């Protein structure tokens, strides 16, 4: 064996190594090569399975279905050619014709919510594909009815000031944060979706830590939440999205009960991005989130040891196990304030001025605090 052969890891007389085993015959002639596809996202498969269970199908029936799908008998269309939509003839919400509800999840929605979901479909990636941040239309459709039920029946959300939410273009929505688990973000996103015309899907910025959590990281991405890196924030605003951000970050959700509704230190990144993208900042207050899981004490050494941001003691946790972390059924109230039009006063390069950015961030923080205090 020559030294050269030895270096490239080839046996003597081996000749040319194939990369993998020989391929099977090519596509059948005369057909669309992508007519069939039977592999899906595991999260979507689980959601399908959950819906089947809710429908009351037997496990054996479901397994027969999946076996048939595996054999290629039941396959869905390859998704990447979106239907042509005539934008000039976009129907108003009330004109959208609804087919009868398809499954249990759809039955949880009223006609208005279903119409909004239909209207939103045009802005979502085609079925079976994902946007830059991992959003899947199917996951949104499956998760929305559950969140809507929480919104309507569990947290009984009331809101005001929707006229301040821009109906198009990029904007940064800034709110207070609280309540251990981020239900405030979810309720705000549902509220925005239900009160904008045309309906808009707000993309919430989540902490890096959420990206390290198994299952949570996939679920968040599929329903439109985005990890808070500079590139992601820039891209979201560049695409004209409503970006929902909680500049208190983890400090907001772990504040103890004696600091409820007192805003913590604001991170300043949202101001930089709003300036660069010349997008307005819409401050808003969420009331109720700080009452959903009041933290009596945060055992910080334990949190550090476990690598968690917080090790809370609440009236129900750890006494009732993981169930004790579930939020109490408090009333939510969301109040939107007037947009702060930074772009009317500053050029994009103002984002380089650290002192100005800090001052603007503090100004937004004071505005949100005032909204919270006034609305309580």
């Amino acid at each position, binding site marked *: 064996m020559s030294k050269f052969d030895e270096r490239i890891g080839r046996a003597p007389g081996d000749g040319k190594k194939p990369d993998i085993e020989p391929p099977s015959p*090519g596509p059948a002639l005369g057909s669309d*090569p992508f007519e069939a596809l039977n592999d899906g996202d595991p999260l979507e498969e689980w959601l399908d399975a959950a819906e089947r269970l809710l429908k009351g199908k037997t496990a054996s029936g479901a397994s027969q279905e999946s076996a048939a799908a595996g054999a290629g008998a039941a396959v869905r269309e390859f998704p990447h*050619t979106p239907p042509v939509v005539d934008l000039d003839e976009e129907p108003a919400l009330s004109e959208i014709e609804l087919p009868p509800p398809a499954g249990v999840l759809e039955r949880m929605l009223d006609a208005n919510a279903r119409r909004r979901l239909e209207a939103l479909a045009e802005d979502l990636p085609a079925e079976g594909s994902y946007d830059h*941040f991992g959003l899947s239309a199917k996951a949104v459709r499956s998760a929305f009815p559950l969140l809507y039920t929480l919104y309507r029946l569990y947290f009984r959300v009331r809101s005001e000031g929707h006229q301040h939410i821009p109906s198009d273009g990029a904007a940064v929505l800034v709110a207070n944060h609280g309540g251990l688990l981020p239900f405030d973000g979810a309720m705000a996103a549902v509220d925005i979706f239900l009160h904008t015309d045309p309906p808009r899907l707000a993309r919430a910025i989540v902490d890096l830590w959420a990206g390290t959590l198994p299952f949570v990281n996939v679920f968040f991405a599929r329903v439109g939440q985005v990890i808070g890196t500079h590139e992601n924030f820039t891209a979201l605003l560049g695409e004209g999205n409503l970006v929902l951000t909680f500049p208190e970050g983890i400090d907001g959700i772990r504040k103890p009960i004696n600091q409820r509704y007192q805003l913590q230190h604001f991170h300043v990144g949202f101001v930089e991005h709003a300036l660069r993208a010349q997008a307005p900042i819409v401050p808003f207050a969420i009331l109720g989130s700080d009452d959903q899981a009041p933290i009596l004490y945060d055992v910080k050494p334990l949190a550090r040891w476990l690598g968690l941001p917080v090790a809370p003691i609440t009236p129900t946790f750890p006494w009732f196990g993981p169930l004790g972390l579930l939020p109490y059924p408090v009333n939510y109230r969301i109040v939107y304030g007037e947009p702060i039009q930074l772009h009317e006063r500053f050029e994009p390069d103002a984002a380089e001025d650290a002192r100005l950015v800090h001052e603007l961030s503090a100004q937004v923080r004071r505005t949100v605090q005032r909204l919270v205090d006034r609305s309580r």
Partner: protein
Amino acid sequence: MRNVLVTHSDEPLGRRVVKLLWHDERIGNIFALGADAAPRAFDTFRAGDPPRFAYARIDLARHRPMSDFFHSSQFRELEIDTVIHVPQHGVASEGLPLAGNVSSRAGEARLVLEHALATRSIRSLVVVGSAFVYRLAPGNANHLSESSELDLGPDPAPGLRPWIDCDMLFHGEIGNPRLRVALLRLPTVVASGGYVYLHPGLAGRAGPRLRPLGFDPLCAVISDKDAARAVQAAIHSDAAGAFNLSGREAIPLSVLGRWTRRPCLPVPGLLLRAAGAGLGRLLGNPLRDLLDGPHLRYGFTLDTSRAERELGFQPQYRIGLARTGDGGLRLETARA
């Protein structure tokens, strides 16, 4: 009319590039280099009088053969003005031993760059790089631009270190006024039949892989045909710099694994980490990263607006499963 030199043309991407350039009327002579004998697909290219195609077998990591080649009469006769460096990416590159701390992939890159700089006739250098050089923040999908941070930590995955070294070598010459350097950063490259290149967790032979349970990173993918088209666009453009490239699709790792006959079996992360640490201590670091590397947890998509703007590159090929003549399904790429 450009006369081009293509390195590692015996590997899948290099072969695809040569085939595309052969049919490009704006390309004159093509000199292909490879570590192995010339692929049979090149036989038809040798026809013509005078022939506009030549092939040489050469070890790019060794200084003497490289120097001899760049000073050879054959090289001079073909009047090469553009070098396309395609680093090793096939199965043969997996077992590359390290010489000191420098892999042969980085050694090759250094020699190619050195000779491209020293040869007066060469005006452009187009390099195929990997987008896995970026540092990944936690999260299922991070959108990365060319200005995103590279993974310059002290302990990157061993499979990625040579790509990072190559990237930095060529990136250092991007401002060179004499030599235009276009560095193309490709995500996972897939080809018809289920071939997959560059992804640290899926590269190599078909077969099952392990991935941490609860993580299913989104993988940007590009077809090998689009990758070759991007190289072609970079040759004909005057733009210099680093360019992210990507296809139309982004696919979760689990789906990509199934499509490419490398099913990724989910295993609890703690178990994987423990097994990786134990085996890593016995056999070395590569196993740890193979079992629990960041690319098995966190995914990325690429901002390709710069390549669209400056190279005029738009992906044209769809990637998906197609039914084959024998009734099975296999990964296929087809023009949209």
